[in-house]
């Protein structure tokens, strides 16, 4: 059950399968994925932004002031990656695994369970990438940021998708029905969202809470992506990347073990 992942190139046709389904439903899917975050951004960014004005953010040049909408945009893009990946790796993967029995039919062909779980993980991360790409496009049009370092934010956001899809797949493996995912979203992702510096600087949190917050995957993602939106280089970048990678690696291993257990019955 806990043996190392045995992923082969047969993961690719499984990934292609999901891509082909998505291509048929791409427009409504993208609208759903980007409309809500954009409404939040516009309503909060311009509305609250007018009240808040500027926010102080630390940078290699010391503290700098940024417009609230830029602060929010750079945080909420990470949140969108998190949510898109989580949604895909929970609700959609569960439909394929449990409801439609798509995984069972794939495993009757020479494709292993490890290949399928890996393909689902990668697919959910790509869904996150599609979503953030569309949102960044709109942000560019709105003129919220024009930082050339966005090009680097892009692969990092894909990595954020990987991390959160790995974590979500743990809960996918344990789920008996869709209701279970409500706990994950409400009791885990929502507090994570508020503790990770998306809406307000993490420095505002009480010291003990902040200690926890600094080790949350989303706060590390925000620390990496926000400076890039402001055309700065992130500080302690290696630390943040390693934290995200550790979450991803450990979660994927647990998710795989639990999924193997589920399918050995």
């Amino acid at each position, binding site marked *: 059950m806990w043996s190392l992942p045995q992923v082969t190139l*047969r993961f690719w*046709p*499984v990934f*292609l*399968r999901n891509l*082909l*389904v998505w291509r*048929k*439903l791409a427009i409504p899917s993208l609208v759903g994925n980007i409309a809500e975050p954009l409404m939040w951004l516009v309503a909060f960014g311009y509305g609250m932004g007018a009240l808040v004005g500027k926010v102080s953010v630390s940078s290699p040049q010391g503290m700098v002031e940024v417009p609230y909408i830029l602060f929010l945009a750079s945080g909420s893009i990470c949140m969108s990656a998190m949510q898109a990946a989580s949604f895909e790796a929970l609700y959609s993967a569960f439909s394929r695994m449990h409801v*439609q*029995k*798509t995984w*069972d*039919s*794939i*495993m*009757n*062909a*020479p*494709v*292993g369970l490890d290949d399928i779980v890996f393909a689902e993980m990668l697919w959910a991360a790509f869904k996150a990438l599609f979503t953030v790409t569309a949102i960044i496009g709109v942000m560019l049009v709105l003129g919220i940021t024009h930082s050339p370092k966005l090009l680097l934010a892009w692969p990092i956001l894909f990595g954020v998708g990987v991390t959160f899809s790995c974590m979500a797949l743990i809960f996918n493996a344990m789920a008996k029905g869709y209701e279970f995912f409500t706990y994950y979203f409400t009791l885990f992702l929502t507090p994570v969202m508020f503790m990770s510096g998306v809406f307000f600087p993490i420095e505002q949190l009480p010291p003990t809470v902040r200690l926890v917050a600094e080790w949350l995957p989303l706060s590390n993602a925000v620390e990496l992506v926000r400076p890039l939106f402001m055309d700065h280089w992130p500080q302690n970048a290696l630390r943040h990347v390693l934290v995200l990678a550790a979450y991803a690696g450990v979660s994927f291993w647990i998710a795989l073990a639990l999924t193997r257990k589920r*399918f*050995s*019955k």
Partner: protein
Amino acid sequence: MAEELFSVSNLVKRFGDNEVVRDLSFSIAPGECLGVIGPNGAGKTTTIRMCLGQTAPDGGSIHAMGLEMPRDARAIKQQLGVVTQMDTLDPDFTCAENLLVYGRYFGLRDKDIKERIPSLLEFASLTSKANAKPGELSGGMKRRLSLARALVNNPRLLLLDEPTTGLDPQARHLMWERLQLLLQQGKSILLTTHFMDEAERLCSRLLVLDHGTKIAEGTPRDLIAKHLEPDVVEVFGQGAMALVDSPVRAHAARVEVSGETVFFYTHNAHNLLEGLSAFPQLRTLHRPANLEDLFLKLTGRQIREDA
């Protein structure tokens, strides 16, 4: 002796303390159709799952095409076609796309699969439905698409788990026709079924499974000859039960009562029917013994708790 395509020896599977497959052995020769029959919970599906490497046996071995399961699961599945009890077609894809996507799981190139799709659809009588989604298909069409999908890799052996359950007679007959065609082409089939007419029609050999144990094996005809009297007379109506203790009883080798019906199993139907003519109020049905009688004799008439 013909080389065995598939063989299972001394297979054991336990779930906790419950032994669901006990010391099961069988084999399939090339071009043969082996039927596995047995009541619900007899271990049929568990056996199929072990043959597919989806659950590991607690004992025994499974060999296929010179390879061993589960060690060579991929290499074996490369040459297998599987139709499961439940349809697992992709609802978002058309029939043609279902075949294309499934072929890719075998590492086949798109070009090669696309060349095969028209003949697979024709085989399944679904040519006109190439661009329809499974939701638009009838139950029989879905099953035939599942069968076509199982053939996408041109397998040597097909594993079919209750392939016609839930189909109407027309759809079932079309399915049988297709399976017979595959047998003529030299493919081998392992089939589980609850339909004795299906088993009789398709299978060259049958395995009767109960409580995870093989309780009989042979050709349908031999099994009937070995375990049953050639004729059955079913009697029902007012006073039928009294016949069990009447002189008519002497003409039957064996008598069974089920509900309101008395079953006489006999070598001498003529004398039995003559004796029964003294009871014109009773309704009688005279027929040759069939696989269903065999099945009920071997596995009992009572309904299982888990059925």
